[in-house]
């Protein structure tokens, strides 16, 4: 193992700038002569616009311009594109409405963009926006799945009858029906997966700039994937050729999915910058983030599990309705389908599965991928159902899971819902979690709590996720309108230091350290001599960015492929310098040695020779030492694990406290254990947040967002969560050379069902067998009262 190579908890290279206040986030950037944009948003959930009067705003102090959707339309600006098409059961395409950057004649959710004011200060722009008069004719609205799918529900889109975007299915319905007919027992459950608001700590921001002399545009933006934004905005919205558009995603303060998507504001500031000939900066207030960042989750499902008397799972049938909001956000259609229903096998060998998903439009903020994206929804549904089956059958949560786990020796395992798992050992993670959680001692702890008048419960969730998205041809066949490879460049500088260019984007994940560890391991270069560059389309090759726990499994593998090329070329150069054959050169610890001799050159000497090729095989080898590789994964990766939560409930108040939490995960090989632990901590707390605290609430009558600030939307705080116990059990991914699987989302996938299963366990003794999520004190208190009545 190299000193700071693979497996070492190297302290992060990027930290110094963040802890000294020298990070450079989008809103920290100021361009000469910039204007500030304020976006006037719809205060109504659904309305026709009869007129927009902007003259008074334009005349206000400091105001330079006021634009509306009509101005953008007149310039031929296109709508925001959707990056994933999903077909209906009958093969017909989904309904795909237009998604204007600013509306022209109808608003469809509270927060829809109506007008943009440009002024010399933020305050002036905001003041002037209050002078814009919009003549709205209010229309009836729908915000939740039930009302959207009711007979004679108001229509969000005239072209989407019943508000249905698509009605999709996966699996073998006939095989499932047959299995249910033969089943000894059927257990069913209705679950809601609560709507969440991502709330990365840095609000979104964007700065557009246009250079009249060269025709070049620059967009600084809070994005997880600058090249994707360049492609979507350049090709579909503004019609800017890609070589004239640079997109920079500098330091980004958290994403969790919400910064994947191409948002209207990016196009507005870029377009407006050319219109007024000055840079234009927009930064969201947090209140604005709540009504303009894509939300997450929001499913309503009914699921049935067919079992034999012995507890074998025979078949699973799932019917899900998903809320997509008012417009299709960039990857929205894929989340409740290919990222959700394909995971319904979980860690179990259920032989037949059929899932139907109907996704609907509502007058709410668009819904798209949020940490886990579809996989938390699948894991929550399945693990709640399995726990219920364990209770109903009396087999118990551990035994029932063990009975149905896919055996470690049956990999590769083809599930009935499209995926082929390459490897895993689910019982090993379960056993480890049980041991750390002292499951055996739980009854004693339950009694102790009971003596204090408290209800104690323990909950298990085993989960699997599909990460490392994705083999491009597979994703393409499923409707993806993009490639999903990753790119990396290893640029060896003449004096032997290394600059890494990666298409992955770090917004907290620590790539500048993890990727440097790969380089130091492969080339023996000191980690201080490795720098990782990301987030600027002018500096890096066309990369796909960071989401779906893909950076190491796809981006890291691109770097590994580039490193292999660097090593191969280095051996040729060394062979020339040492007058040996390149097959005889061994590359180890930064030295290239003729095998079996003490003749060697350092990697630094090889690098110098490559750039000062005086003694160099110029007839057969190009000078220079810089290699790029594009890596398209062969399969998804399948992190899996077991999370156990232990809670205590005060029956008098309904308050649930998480006392202990254990996560035992299989992420494949771990490059930096410190960073991986941190990822799990953060994910688990977001999962606990979903289970107990976080809930996006719309007023059903008015369509107003009631949880529109951090005062109303409860994010977990330090004293809401326990100290977490985190462990790993490793099986190596079989189809990438690093053996890595990805760790970014697991916490948010396993924690939510573990906590709710624990809450239900705590209450099951008093006759409660279900609690709504999030299990807030009021809801738990009500459940207790109802059971007692």
């Amino acid at each position, binding site marked *: 193992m190299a000193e700071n190579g693979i497996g070492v908890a190297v302290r992060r290279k990027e930290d110094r700038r963040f802890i*000294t*206040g020298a990070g450079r986030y989008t809103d*920290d950037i100021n361009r000469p002569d910039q204007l500030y944009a304020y976006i006037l948003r719809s205060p109504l959930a659904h309305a026709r616009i009869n007129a927009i009067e902007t003259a008074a705003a334009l005349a206000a102090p400091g105001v330079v311009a006021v634009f509306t959707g009509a101005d953008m339309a007149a310039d031929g600006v296109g709508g925001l594109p959707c990056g994933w098409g999903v077909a209906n059961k009958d093969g017909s395409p989904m309904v795909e409405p237009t998604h204007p950057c600013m509306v022209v004649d109808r608003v469809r959710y509270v927060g829809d963009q109506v007008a943009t004011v440009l002024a010399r200060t933020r305050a002036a722009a905001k003041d002037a926006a209050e002078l814009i008069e919009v003549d709205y004719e209010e229309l009836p609205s729908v915000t939740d799945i039930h009302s959207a799918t009711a007979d004679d529900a108001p229509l969000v889109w005239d072209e989407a009858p019943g508000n249905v975007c698509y009605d999709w299915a996966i699996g073998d319905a006939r095989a499932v029906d047959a299995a249910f007919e033969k089943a000894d027992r059927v257990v069913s459950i209705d679950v809601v997966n609560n709507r969440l608001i991502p709330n990365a700590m*840095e609000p979104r921001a964007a700065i557009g700039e246009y250079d009249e002399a060269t025709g070049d545009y620059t967009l600084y933006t809070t994005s997880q994937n600058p090249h994707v934004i360049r492609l979507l905005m350049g090709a579909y919205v503004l019609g800017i050729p890609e070589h004239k558009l640079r997109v920079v995603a500098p330091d980004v303060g958290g994403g969790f999915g919400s910064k994947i998507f191409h948002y209207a504001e990016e196009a507005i500031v870029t377009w407006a910058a050319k219109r007024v000939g000055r840079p234009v900066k927009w930064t969201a207030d947090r*209140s604005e983030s709540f009504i303009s960042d894509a939300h997450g989750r929001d499913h309503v499902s009914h699921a049935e599990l067919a079992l034999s008397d012995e507890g074998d799972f025979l078949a699973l049938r799932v019917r899900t309705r998903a809320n997509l909001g008012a417009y299709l956000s960039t990857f929205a259609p894929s989340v409740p389908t290919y990222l959700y229903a394909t995971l319904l096998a979980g860690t179990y060998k259920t032989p037949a599965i059929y899932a139907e998903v109907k996704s609907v439009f509502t007058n709410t903020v668009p819904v798209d991928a949020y940490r886990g994206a579809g996989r938390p929804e699948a894991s929550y549904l399945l693990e709640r159902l399995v726990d219920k089956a364990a209770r109903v059958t009396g087999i118990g949560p551990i035994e029932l899971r063990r009975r149905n786990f896919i055996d470690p020796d049956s990999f590769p395992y083809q599930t009935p819902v499209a995926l082929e798992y390459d490897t895993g050992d689910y019982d090993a993670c379960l056993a480890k979690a049980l041991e750390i959680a002292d499951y055996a001692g739980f009854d004693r702890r339950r009694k102790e709590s009971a003596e204090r008048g408290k209800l104690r419960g323990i909950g298990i969730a085993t989960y699997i996720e599909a990460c490392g998205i994705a083999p491009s041809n597979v994703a393409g066949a499923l409707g993806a309108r993009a490639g999903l490879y990753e790119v990396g460049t290893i640029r060896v500088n003449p004096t032997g230091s290394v600059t890494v260019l990666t298409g992955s984007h770090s917004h*907290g994940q620590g790539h500048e350290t993890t990727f440097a560890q790969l380089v130091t391991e492969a080339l023996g270069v000191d980690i201080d001599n490795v720098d990782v560059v990301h987030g600027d389309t002018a500096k890096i090759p066309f990369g796909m960015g960071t989401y779906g726990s893909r950076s190491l499994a796809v981006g890291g593998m691109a770097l590994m492929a580039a490193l292999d090329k660097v090593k191969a070329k280095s051996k040729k150069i060394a062979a020339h310098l040492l007058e040996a054959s390149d097959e005889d050169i061994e590359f180890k610890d930064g030295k290239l040695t003729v095998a079996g001799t003490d003749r060697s050159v350092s990697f630094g000497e090889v690098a110098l020779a490559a750039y000062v090729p005086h003694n160099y095989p110029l007839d057969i080898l190009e000078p220079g030492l810089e290699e790029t590789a594009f890596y398209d994964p062969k399969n998804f990766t399948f992190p899996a694990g077991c999370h156990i939560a232990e809670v205590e409930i005060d029956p008098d108040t309904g308050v649930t406290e998480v006392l202990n939490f254990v996560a035992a995960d299989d992420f494949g090989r771990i490059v930096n254990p410190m960073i991986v632990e941190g990822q799990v901590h953060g994910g688990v707390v977001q999962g606990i947040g979903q289970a107990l605290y976080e809930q996006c609430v719309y007023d059903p009558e008015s369509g107003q967002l009631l949880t529109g600030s951090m005062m109303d939307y409860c994010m977990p705080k330090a004293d809401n969560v326990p100290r*977490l116990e985190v462990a790993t059990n490793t099986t190596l991914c079989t189809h990438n050379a690093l053996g890595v699987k990805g760790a970014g989302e697991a916490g948010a996938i396993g924690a939510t069902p573990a906590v709710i299963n624990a809450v239900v366990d705590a209450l099951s003794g008093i006759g409660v067998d279900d609690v709504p999520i999030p299990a807030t004190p009021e809801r738990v208190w009500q459940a207790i009262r109802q059971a007692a009545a």
Partner: protein
Amino acid sequence: MTVTVSFVLNGEDVSVDVEPRTLLVEALRDRLRRTGTHVGCDTSQCGACVVHVDGRSVKSCSMLAVQAEGAEVVTIEGLAKGGRLHPMQEAFREHHGLQCGFCTPGMIMSALDLVSQNPDPDENQIRHWLEGNLCRCTGYQNIVRAIKAGAQAMRSA
């Protein structure tokens, strides 16, 4: 209409013309270009904007710039001296107390006020103190660890 406000920022006298309604954080970021202090919300919940005013932690989004007249203001940029990190900064790095880094300046400034009042806080005290500081990345575990270690380092410094 603007007014001139003068205060000491990280040991240096500064004067800046602001509108009376300008918040301290806006003056720091937009006018004085000290962008280490962040804005994460507009309801004074998140704590990303915590600075020290006359030795106490303050959410600089909940104070007008004019109220800082004559005050001693310290921001995250004022902690490291001569290129040497403050022990609390060092502890955040050592214990992986940050991921995206956006909440970090506020966390560190808030932690320093805690330690000035309670040089040896236990885990519960730290968690309770951080009620006004939100982090979405770390799950708080390593922030708590970092603050405990930072306090220890400050005691032995």
